[in-house]
C-alpha cells in the first residue's frame, strides 16, 4: 500500500526530497522561516546513482541489516529495500573498509568517498514535524529475557519475519533453529501502560490490533496447526470496525486471548522453548510453554526528537510527545510549526494520515496568498498519435520480490510472452512498481516505439494509476495499458503448485496481450472547478472544516439542520483534560459567523442533488418557510455527526435513577455529587453486542472522566465501573491510572454474564460476577450510569439523495480505511467527525481540518480531468426499453423526453458497467471495456496455449 505513495512522493514535481538530513535550527517568523539543515554524507550521489546495485553486489563487507531489525545481514554499501525512494544506495562508513571496489564497479561514477557533512538552509512559510516513533527497547526488562533468549522477539522483528522481503523470506521460523514454531505467545503492553518498569504511563494505541494481525497472519503462514495466545490486560480494538476484526480472530481464526500478567520467561536449554509464568485473572500462578514469544512493544519517541524539540523551542509532555491542546490537536506552542503522526501522540496509520492532512490544512492555510508562487508547472509531453499504428506491445513481468518469483517461473513467463502476437519487447523486474523500473519502462517505450504496455504483476486497483502515469510521462495515451494480476489471483492462491501457477500466469499474460491489442487511446475531458464548498453539518466537525477552507480563501456554504450550530457538543461540558467545551463552541461559532468566506444556513434540509466532482448543485430548503435555494459548489464535506445511543437495557427509561453518561455530566454540573454515596457505571451499553458489533471508542474515557469528577466533588463517594475491556488509549490511560489511584473500583465482566439490575425502594442493586473473587457482588447504588455508545445520526434521506454509502451501523464509509480515511468513494466528497465513526473532540477537529485539506487539493485547481472510462449509448440501435435507467446504481442514464433518446452524462457516469451488462440490445459500450476488448480476453483464454 505504501509503495504507490512512495513513488508518488518521489516523482511529484512539487516535493523536494532531502534525505540524510536533520534540522539544526529554525529562525524567522511564521510565513517566512529560515530552516538550517545539517546534511549528513551519503557517500553516493543520489542524483547520479541509478540504483543498479553493482556496488552492493561487489561490496566484501558484511554489516547487520537494521531494516530487518538486525535479523540478517546487508553489505556496507546498501539500500534499505527494493522499492526505496529515492532509489539510491548509501555507504555505511561505520563498517566500510574503504577497499574501493564499489567505486571501481560504479559505471555512473556516483561513489564519493570524500563526501562530508554540510550545512544548508531553505526558506519556508510553515513547518510540520512528523518525525514519528520507534519501538520500545525491551532489553531493559530483565524478566522478559529479550536479548538473552533467542526465541523472544519484538513485534517489530516479527513483522520482518512474516514479510516476504524479510530475513526468512516470509517463512514462519523462529530465530534460534529456523524451525517453524508450533505455539506463539504475544505479550501486550511491553513498554506501555507501565509506570513501574518502563516509566511509560501511556497506552501505545496500536499494539492490540497489530498483535491480532500478526497472530492471524502467522496462522496463515503456518504449515500445520499453530496455537496463538495473546496475553493482555484489556484488548483495545477501539477503531472503526476493529472490534469485528478482533471477533474474527477470536471466534473464526481461533486466536486465544488470555487475561494475565507475566511474571518471568525462562528458556528450556535443550529445546529453546520458552516457559511463560504468569498470574491469571484470579491471581493464580500459571505456567505454559511456547516455541516463540513476541513482545508487543509500544511506540516510543526517540531521544533525537526530544533534542530537536528542545533546539526549536517546542514543548513536549513528560513522555516526549508534542504538547497539544485538544481543540488544536496539530498546533505546537510555536506559531507556524505544526505536528502530526505519532510525534503528536500514539496512534495508528489512518489516524496519522488524518492528522497529516490536518497539519497540511493549517500549514498551507497560513500561506494561502502565496499558494502556487513557489512551484513549477508540470509539462505533460504532447501525446503521440498512435491510433493508426499496428499494435507494438511491451510486456513487463514482475517478480514482486518472492511474492510472484518464488512460485511462478518468471523467466519462463517472460520467454512465453515474447512469442505472443504483437509483442515486440519483454522484460522482468524484481519490483515493477519501484521508481527505477518506471524510468526503465519509459526508456523501453521510447527505444522500442511501444504503443501498448502490459504489466503482469499485482492488482490494478492499487497500481494501475501509477503505471498509467508512467505512460503519460512519455507521451503515450494512458489507456493503452493493461495489467495481468499474476500475484493476488495466481501466485498467492496457487502457492502450493508452482507448475500450475506458471501455466496460469502464461494464460493471464496471453489474455492481457490480446486485450492490449484491442485498446484505443481515450480522451479525458477537462472540467472547470467551482471553487465553492458545501459543508453538511454545523457541529464541531463542520465548523472546523468550513474555517479550514475559509482560511485557504475558498467560499463555503455551511448547512445545519437545527436552528443553531454546535451539534452534539452542545450537550457536553468539559473534555477529560478539563477544557471547557461550551467556551470553545462559542468561540468557534463566532469565528464562523465572522468569517466572510463562510455562509451559514440553519434549519436547512437537502432536497435535491446533482452533478459531479468540481460541479455539484444542491437544492436546499431553508428556514421555517422552507425557502428554496440552489447551491452550486465543487466539493462536499459530510459532517453530519452522531448522537448518544438511547439504551433499552438496565431499566433505562423505567427508573429515573438510571441515566446515561451525558446526563450524569449535566447532573454533576447542576447538582454536584454531595448527595451521592455510590455510583455504578456499566460500560459497552449499545456497543460490542449483536446489534452493534463495534466499540464506541469514547465511552471508557467518558466513564473515567465522570468518575474523576465525582471523586473531585465528593471524595467519599464510591464509584464502581463495570467493564469488559477498559479502552483508555493513548494518553487517556493516565486518567484511568488516576481514577484507580482515587479509589474508583473497576470490575470486569464477561459479555455472556452481564450485570443485572434490580430496583428496590432503598436504591438500585447491581449484581455482577467479580473475576478475582469468582463470585457475585451486589452493589446498592444511588445512581446507575450507562456508558451508552454512539449512534449515527439519521441520514437515510441524505444518503439516498446524495447516493452516499453507509455501514450497517449507519456511519458513512470512507474510500479506504487505511490510506484514505477522510475521502469518500465518490470523488470530490469528503467525510469528517462522528459521521465517520465515534471519536473524541480532538480527533474530530483534526479530521475536519483533514477534510478541508483534502478538499483544497481539488479547489486549488482551475480544472480537473474526468475519467475517460464511461458508458456510451448507440442511439440509432437503442429501443428505449429503459433497462439501463432502472439498473444504474447512480441514476445516471435518463430518458430525454424531447429528443426521445437515452442520455448518459459522462461527467457523472462512474464507469461501473452495469448498464452495459444489462442492455438487452448491446447498444451501450463502456470505453476501455468494450465488448471486443473483453471477448478478446475470453478468446485468448480458450485458445490452446
Amino acid at each position, binding site marked *: 500500500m505504501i509503495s504507490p505513495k512512495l513513488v508518488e*512522493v518521489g516523482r511529484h514535481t512539487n516535493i523536494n526530497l532531502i534525505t540524510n538530513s536533520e534540522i539544526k535550527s529554525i529562525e524567522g517568523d511564521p510565513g517566512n522561516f529560515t530552516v538550517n539543515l545539517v546534511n549528513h554524507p551519503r557517500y553516493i550521489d543520489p542524483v547520479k546513482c541509478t540504483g543498479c546495485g553493482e556496488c552492493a553486489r561487489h561490496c566484501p563487507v558484511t554489516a547487520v541489516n537494521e531494516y530487518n531489525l538486525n535479523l540478517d545481514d546487508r553489505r556496507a554499501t546498501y539500500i534499505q529495500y527494493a522499492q526505496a525512494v529515492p532509489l539510491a544506495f548509501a555507504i555505511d562508513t561505520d563498517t566500510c573498509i574503504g577497499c574501493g571496489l564499489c567505486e571501481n564497479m560504479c559505471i555512473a561514477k556516483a561513489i564519493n568517498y570524500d563526501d562530508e557533512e554540510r550545512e544548508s538552509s531553505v526558506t519556508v512559510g510553515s513547518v510540520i514535524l512528523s518525525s514519528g516513533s520507534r519501538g520500545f527497547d525491551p532489553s531493559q526488562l530483565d524478566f522478559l529475557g529479550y536479548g538473552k533468549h533467542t526465541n523472544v522477539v519484538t513485534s517489530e522483528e516479527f513483522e520482518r519475519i512474516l514479510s516476504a522481503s524479510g530475513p526468512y523470506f516470509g517463512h514462519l521460523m523462529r530465530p534460534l533453529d529456523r524451525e517453524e514454531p508450533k505455539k506463539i505467545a504475544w505479550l501486550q503492553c511491553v513498554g506501555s501502560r507501565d509506570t513501574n518498569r518502563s516509566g511509560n504511563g501511556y497506552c501505545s494505541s496500536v499494539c492490540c490490533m497489530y498483535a491480532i494481525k500478526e497472530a492471524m497472519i502467522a496462522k496463515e503462514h503456518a504449515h500445520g496447526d499453530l496455537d496463538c495466545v495473546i496475553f493482555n490486560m484489556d484488548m483495545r480494538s477501539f477503531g472503526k470496525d476493529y472490534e469485528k476484526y478482533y471477533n474474527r480472530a477470536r471466534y473464526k481464526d481461533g486466536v486465544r486471548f488470555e487475561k494475565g500478567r507475566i511474571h518471568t520467561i525462562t528458556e528450556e536449554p535443550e529445546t529453546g522453548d520458552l516457559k511463560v509464568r504468569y498470574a491469571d485473572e484470579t491471581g493464580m500462578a500459571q505456567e505454559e510453554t511456547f516455541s516463540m514469544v513476541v513482545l508487543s512493544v509500544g511506540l516510543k519517541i526517540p531521544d533525537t526528537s526530544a533534542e530537536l524539540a528542545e533546539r526549536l523551542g517546542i514543548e513536549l509532555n513528560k513522555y516526549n510527545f508534542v504538547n497539544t491542546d485538544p481543540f488544536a490537536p496539530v498546533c505546537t506552542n510555536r506559531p507556524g510549526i505544526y505536528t502530526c503522526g505519532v510525534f503528536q501522540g500514539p496512534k495508528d496509520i489512518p489516524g496519522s494520515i488524518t492528522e497529516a492532512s490536518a497539519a497540511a490544512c493549517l500549514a498551507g492555510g497560513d500561506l494561502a496568498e502565496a499558494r502556487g508562487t513557489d*512551484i513549477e508547472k508540470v509539462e505533460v509531453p504532447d501525446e503521440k498519435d498512435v491510433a493508426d499504428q499496428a499494435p507494438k506491445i511491451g510486456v513487463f513481468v514482475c517478480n514482486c520480490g518472492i511474492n510472484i518469483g518464488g512460485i511462478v517461473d518468471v523467466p519462463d513467463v517472460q520467454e512465453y510472452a515474447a512469442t505472443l502476437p504483437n509483442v515486440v519487447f519483454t522484460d522482468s523486474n524484481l519490483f515493477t512498481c519501484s521508481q527505477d523500473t518506471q524510468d526503465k519502462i519509459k526508456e523501453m517505450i521510447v527505444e522500442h516505439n511501444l504503443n501498448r504496455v502490459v504489466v503482469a504483476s499485482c492488482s490494478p486497483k492499487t497500481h494501475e494509476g501509477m503505471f498509467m502515469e508512467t505512460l503519460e510521462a512519455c507521451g503515450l495515451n494512458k489507456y493503452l495499458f493493461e495489467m495481468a494480476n499474476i500475484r493476488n489471483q495466481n501466485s498467492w492462491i496457487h502457492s502450493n503448485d508452482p507448475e500450475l501457477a506458471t501455466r496460469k500466469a502464461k494464460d493471464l499474460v496471453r489474455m492481457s496481450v490480446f486485450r492490449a491489442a484491442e485498446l484505443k487511446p481515450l480522451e479525458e475531458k477537462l472540467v472547470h472547478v467551482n471553487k465553492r464548498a458545501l459543508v453538511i453539518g454545523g457541529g464541531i466537525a463542520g465548523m472546523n472544516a468550513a474555517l479550514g477552507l475559509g482560511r485557504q480563501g475558498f467560499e463555503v456554504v455551511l448547512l445545519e439542520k437545527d436552528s443553531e450550530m454546535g451539534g452534539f457538543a452542545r450537550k457536553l461540558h468539559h473534555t477529560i483534560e478539563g477544557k471547557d467545551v461550551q467556551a470553545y463552541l462559542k468561540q468557534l461559532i463566532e469565528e464562523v459567523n465572522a468569517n466572510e468566506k463562510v455562509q451559514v444556513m440553519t434549519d436547512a434540509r437537502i432536497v435535491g442533488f446533482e452533478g459531479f466532482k468540481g460541479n455539484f448543485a444542491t437544492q436546499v430548503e431553508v428556514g421555517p418557510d422552507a425557502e428554496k435555494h440552489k447551491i452550486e459548489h465543487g466539493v462536499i464535506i459530510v459532517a453530519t455527526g452522531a448522537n448518544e445511543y438511547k439504551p433499552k437495557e438496565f431499566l433505562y427509561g423505567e427508573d429515573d435513577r438510571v441515566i446515561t453518561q451525558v446526563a450524569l455530566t449535566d447532573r454533576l454540573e447542576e447538582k454536584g455529587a454531595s448527595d451521592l454515596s455510590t455510583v455504578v457505571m456499566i460500560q459497552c451499553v449499545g456497543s460490542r453486542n449483536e446489534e452493534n458489533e463495534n466499540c464506541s471508542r469514547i465511552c471508557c474515557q467518558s466513564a473515567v472522566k465522570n468518575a474523576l469528577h465525582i471523586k473531585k466533588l465528593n471524595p467519599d463517594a464510591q464509584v464502581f465501573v463495570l467493564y469488559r475491556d477498559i479502552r483508555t488509549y493513548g494518553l487517556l490511560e493516565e486518567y484511568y491510572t488516576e481514577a484507580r489511584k482515587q479509589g474508583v473500583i473497576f470490575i470486569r465482566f464477561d459479555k455472556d454474564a452481564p450485570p443485572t439490575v434490580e430496583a428496590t425502594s432503598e436504591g438500585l442493586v447491581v449484581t455482577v460476577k467479580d473475576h478475582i473473587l469468582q463470585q457475585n457482588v451486589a452493589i446498592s447504588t444511588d445512581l446507575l450510569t450507562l456508558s451508552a455508545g454512539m449512534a449515527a445520526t439519521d441520514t437515510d434521506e441524505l444518503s439516498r439523495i446524495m447516493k452516499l454509502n453507509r455501514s450497517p451501523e449507519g456511519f458513512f464509509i470512507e474510500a479506504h480505511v487505511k490510506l484514505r480515511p477522510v475521502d469518500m468513494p465518490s470523488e470530490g466528497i469528503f467525510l469528517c467527525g462522528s459521521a465517520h465513526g465515534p471519536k473524541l473532540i480532538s480527533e474530530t477537529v483534526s479530521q475536519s481540518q483533514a477534510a478541508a485539506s483534502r478538499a483544497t487539493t481539488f479547489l486549488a485547481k482551475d480544472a480537473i480531468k474526468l475519467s475517460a472510462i464511461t458508458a456510451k449509448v448507440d442511439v440509432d440501435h437503442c429501443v428505449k426499453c429503459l433497462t439501463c435507467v432502472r439498473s444504474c446504481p447512480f441514476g445516471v442514464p435518463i430518458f430525454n423526453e424531447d429528443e426521445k433518446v437515452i442520455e448518459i452524462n459522462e461527467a457523472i457516469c462512474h464507469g461501473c458497467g452495469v448498464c452495459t451488462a444489462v442492455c438487452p440490445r448491446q447498444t451501450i459500450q463502456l470505453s476501455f471495456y468494450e465488448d471486443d476488448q473483453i471477448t478478446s480476453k475470453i478468446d485468448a483464454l480458450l485458445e490452446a496455449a
Partner: protein
Amino acid sequence: MADKSGSVMVLGAGIAGMQASLDLANSDYNVYLVDKTPTIGGMMARLDKTFPTNDCAM
C-alpha cells in the same frame, strides 16, 4: 513583513510526513520533505501487513 513563502518544510518522511507533503504539493505548495535516513517510508515500510484489511503494508 516580507512576502510570505509558498513553501512548507515537512520533517520526517514516514506515512504522516508523506501524506502531509502530498496534500500540500497537490494544493500547489512547494514542499521540502526532510528525513534523517537515506530513504523515505518510515516505520510503515517495515511492516508486513496492516490491520484491519490485512493488505500488504508495502
